[in-house]
């Protein structure tokens, strides 16, 4: 039930976060910039001083005149189009444009193909779905569907649709579009890969009339009524065959926007491209948004994106590091936060790698990590506060179980006496009790008296955080008289090592969806050799997993999910180290009315749904923000809209001046003879 990309994957946000490129130091810039300018000026003065002498030369005067004339011609020619650009003052008719800097590309505008979180954001702007997510806690809320009801047995769900929605090409949106979309997904192929999990158990999609959709299930599905599947227009997609869809880009052609139902229309952009532009849907059923245009620009490194925000070229930067957030905080007109993102990072152990066909053990895990008692004891050998402070630069929260605090309903909190505190004495005592006592050589031994040897702690090369955490862990293990070694692997290599079972422990993380089924499934026996990376397998856990998947009563399901977390906590295949966060910064002197999700403490963009794009306003209208709670009120001060035009003019001028200077030097040199040099 994944609605978004996974943060810690090789392509996920983790890389962005840990891409610790060296920062430019302020004083260096200043000195160099001044020197460069002085140098140019010096060169100019020198050139002028010598001009008199050169004019004496044969043909010299004519050459210079021609050259100067040509140069001025070029200057004029290049300035002319710049001047015809909108002058800086004419703000009246200028569209309100909200520019977002992403650090990662959209991988597909086709809602059946993409994987990146950025792509999900694009689809949500282009297409609405039957249900959306609330801002407060990501619970299902009406969207294209105004309401829904279910039968007693939970096997029939009836959704009532809005009747005032039109596609951007003027066609009416009806229940046929819904049944067409769901039909494509149920038919299999790429469509099912992305969205099939939401329709698990659906046997029939009926449309008694234009505004009613009836779903029939053969088994109760606990994820209902959540249906965040983007509804596509049948009249457009019916011409795209099953085979064509796997390479169908769904991009604007011939300047025509992609036909959709969402608050904005994609008018410019290609998969993997660097700019995506959306125009507002003037007929949007929820009310016309207060901005006219959204532009997404992909920056491939963090520093330039931050510079663009400071300069005002972009209004929002998504997915920056905690260090950058700290540096931006306190700047006038910029708001920078680390928003809680519903994901966790963990130290995972090898809980028993086996060949899934024969059931025989594979790989070479240390016997100690196969023992739940040993693993659980180490839960108290982690100073999570220090991990957050140092490895996460203070952003994020200390971790305990696999459901983050954002999902309060499903989350299980360890009882106070077992809470994951940093308590080496307790850890030592638990190890002693489990038979891992200190031997003659000063190191702990296995219960049978054999040495434990060095535990292999594996980190990922693309994440400095991962390496830092493992190095801390090594230190604390040493204090418990357990030897260990840290090695970092490239993610692809580590994946292979994990699947081969050749490890004791590694550091990685997961993103957790509002519906917990996906995350919970990764710890089931079914996923051994699949997505399970701890090789954890527990029949009682699996039984609960099946139960919660078809539990209609939410309270009962929450209790089951909590019980599953409890099992995992004491069996400890994972030691959850931290709940991650995403750094965001934006120009609060230009835009207002942005709200976090979950509210408070969450993220502003790449949320579930696109509420902020619809509700945000230019700062001049800040007092009209809907509602009060959590909406950010911003200081009033308007941005510098003329920046680009002015920059263009002055920038072009500078280039020409440099060319002119260079030309002058060349001309001067050419005329010289041996005598001039010697």
């Amino acid at each position, binding site marked *: *039930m*994944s609605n978004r*990309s*996974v943060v810690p*994957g090789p*392509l996920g946000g983790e890389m962005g976060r840990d891409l610790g490129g*060296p920062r*430019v130091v302020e004083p260096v810039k200043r000195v160099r*910039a001044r020197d*460069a*300018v002085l140098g140019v000026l010096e060169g100019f003065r020198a050139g002028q001083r010598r001009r008199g002498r050169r004019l004496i030369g044969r043909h010299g005067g004519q050459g210079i005149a021609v050259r100067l004339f040509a140069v001025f011609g070029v200057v004029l020619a*290049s300035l002319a*189009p*710049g001047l*015809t650009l909108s002058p800086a003052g004419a703000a009246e008719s200028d569209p309100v*444009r909200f*520019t977002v800097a992403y650090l990662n590309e959209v*991988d*597909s505008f*086709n809602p059946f193909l*993409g*994987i990146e979180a950025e792509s999900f954001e694009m689809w949500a702007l282009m297409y609405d779905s039957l249900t959306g997510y609330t801002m407060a806690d990501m619970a299902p809320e009406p969207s294209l569907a105004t309401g829904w009801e279910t039968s007693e047995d939970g096997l029939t769900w009836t959704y009532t649709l809005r009747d005032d929605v039109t596609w951007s090409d003027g066609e009416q949106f009806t229940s046929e579009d819904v049944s067409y979309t769901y039909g494509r997904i149920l038919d299999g192929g*790429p469509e*099912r*890969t992305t969205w*099939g999990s939401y329709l698990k158990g659906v046997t029939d999609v009926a449309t008694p009339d234009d505004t009613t959709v009836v779903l029939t299930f053969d088994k109760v599905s606990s994820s209902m009524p959540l249906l965040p599947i983007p509804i596509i227009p049948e009249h457009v997609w019916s011409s795209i065959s099953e085979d064509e869809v*796997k*390479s169908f*880009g769904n991009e604007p052609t011939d300047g025509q926007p992609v036909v959709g139902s969402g608050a904005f229309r994609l008018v410019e952009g*290609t998969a*993997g491209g*660097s*700019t995506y532009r959306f125009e507002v849907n003037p007929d949007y059923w929820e009310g016309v948004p207060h901005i006219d*245009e959204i*532009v997404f*620009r*992909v*920056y*491939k*490194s963090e*520093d*330039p994106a931050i510079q*663009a925000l400071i*300069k005002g070229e972009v209004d929002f930067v998504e997915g920056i590091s905690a260090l950058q957030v700290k540096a931006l905080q306190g700047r006038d007109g910029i708001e920078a936060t680390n928003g809680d993102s519903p994901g966790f990072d963990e130290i995972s152990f090898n809980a028993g790698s086996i060949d899934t066909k024969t059931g025989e053990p594979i790989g070479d895990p240390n016997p100690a990590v196969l023992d739940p008692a040993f693993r659980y004891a180490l839960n108290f050998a982690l100073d999570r506060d220090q991990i957050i402070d140092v490895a996460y630069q203070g952003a994020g929260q200390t971790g305990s179980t696999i459901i983050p605090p954002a999902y309060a309903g499903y989350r299980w909190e360890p009882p106070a006496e077992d809470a994951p505190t940093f308590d080496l004495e307790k850890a030592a005592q638990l190890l002693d009790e489990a038979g891992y006592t200190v031997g003659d050589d000063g190191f702990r031994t296995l219960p049978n008296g054999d040495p434990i040897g060095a535990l292999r702690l594996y980190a990922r090369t693309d994440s400095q955080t991962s390496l830092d955490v493992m190095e801390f862990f090594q230190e604390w293990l040493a204090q418990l008289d357990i030897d260990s070694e840290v090695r970092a692997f490239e993610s*692809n*290599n580590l*994946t*292979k090592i994990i699947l081969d079972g050749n490890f004791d422990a590694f550091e990685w993380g*997961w993103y957790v969806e509002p519906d917990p089924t996906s995350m919970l499934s990764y710890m089931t026996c079914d996923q051994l050799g*699949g*997505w399970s990376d701890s090789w954890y397998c527990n029949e009682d856990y699996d039984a609960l997993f099946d139960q919660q998947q078809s539990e209609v009563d939410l309270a009962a399901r929450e209790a089951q999910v909590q019980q599953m977390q409890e099992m995992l906590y004491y069996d400890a295949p994972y030691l959850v180290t931290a709940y991650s966060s995403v750094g965001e910064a934006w120009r609060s002197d230009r835009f207002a009315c942005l709200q976090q999700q979950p509210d408070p403490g969450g993220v502003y963009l790449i949320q579930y749904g696109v509420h902020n794009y619809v509700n945000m306003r230019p700062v001049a209208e800040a007092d009209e923000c809907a509602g009060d709670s959590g909406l950010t009120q911003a200081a009033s001060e308007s941005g510098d809209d003329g*920046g*680009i035009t002015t*920059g*263009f003019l002055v920038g*072009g001028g*500078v280039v020409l001046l440099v060319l002119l200077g260079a030309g002058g030097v060349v001309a001067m*040199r050419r005329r010289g003879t*041996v005598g001039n*040099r010697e």
Partner: protein
Amino acid sequence: MTIGAVTEAPVSVDQPRTRRRSYGRYALGKSVGALGSLGFVLVVNFFLFRILPGDPGRNLGRGRMDSAEDLAAFNEAYGLDQALPQQFLTFVRGTLSGDLGTSLRYRVPVSDLLVDRMWPTLLLVGTATLLATLIGVWIGVIGAWNRGGRFDRFSTGGSLTLYSMPEWWLGLLLIATLAVGIGPIPGLFPTGGLSSPGVDATSLMGTFDVAWHLALPVTTLTLAYVADYSLIMRSSLLDEIGEDYLTTARAKGLRDVQVRNRHAVRNALLPTTTLVALNIGFVVTGAITVETVFSIPGLGLLSTEALEVPDYPVLQGAFLVASAAVIVANLAANLVYGVLDPRVRA
């Protein structure tokens, strides 16, 4: 097919040949060799990337394709479930008929992707190479002609400094100063990207807009490349400076500039020509660091990102284009050499 190989052409003194025929044979030999290299590259590309660790399905599907069936469906849809020889056949057949396959990450035809990404790279690296050649040759000539002078010391030191400076760092400096503005300098250039949103790239305004966006990245690359050319030009011109024919030229009463440009430089240009020919081939491979810092969607970025997946069709396509460019540039250089200097055909 390197430039060096041209001197190893078989010598056959026995057969008397006309000049034209021998050039035809020479050209044919070189072309066949180039085709062979291309075929070799084709095979190596396919297997090279499959030796790398990494399973595209697992990398792309983490948290998305939750069940084994989903993964299997993905692999089947993109032909990853077939045996390697079968995949190779499909690849060769596709490539020969001009179909480079579908990108696993972006799910669009690789050829579309390559075309989209090629022109930013060509503009960026091509312009920078051209500028660096012109400026470098000029600096080298002036420096060598005034060896030990102020200009020479300054330019040699300067270009070496720029040469050893990491490109991304130079790029960041330029962004911090000229794009954002610092102290009295206003922010003149954009911080990244290739064009302003909403500007038609084919219009005159669009052309200026692209030029404006490319000013800083091209400057960065040019500064980084200049030393390549200036140092080679400088040293080869220095070799010529003591020659008798220059003294003769001076004795004829020629201007210093004429002695330099018409006599000395002409003879010293050959090594630089070789370098230019070689570098032209590398234009399409892109400039990864500069593309990253300035967020220019070029081929360099495309191929580095494809490595993470690994996106086999994109990697194969990008490497094929890059190798083909180098091979063709070399072939062209060989063919031109054959005309310029008949001795290499012997």
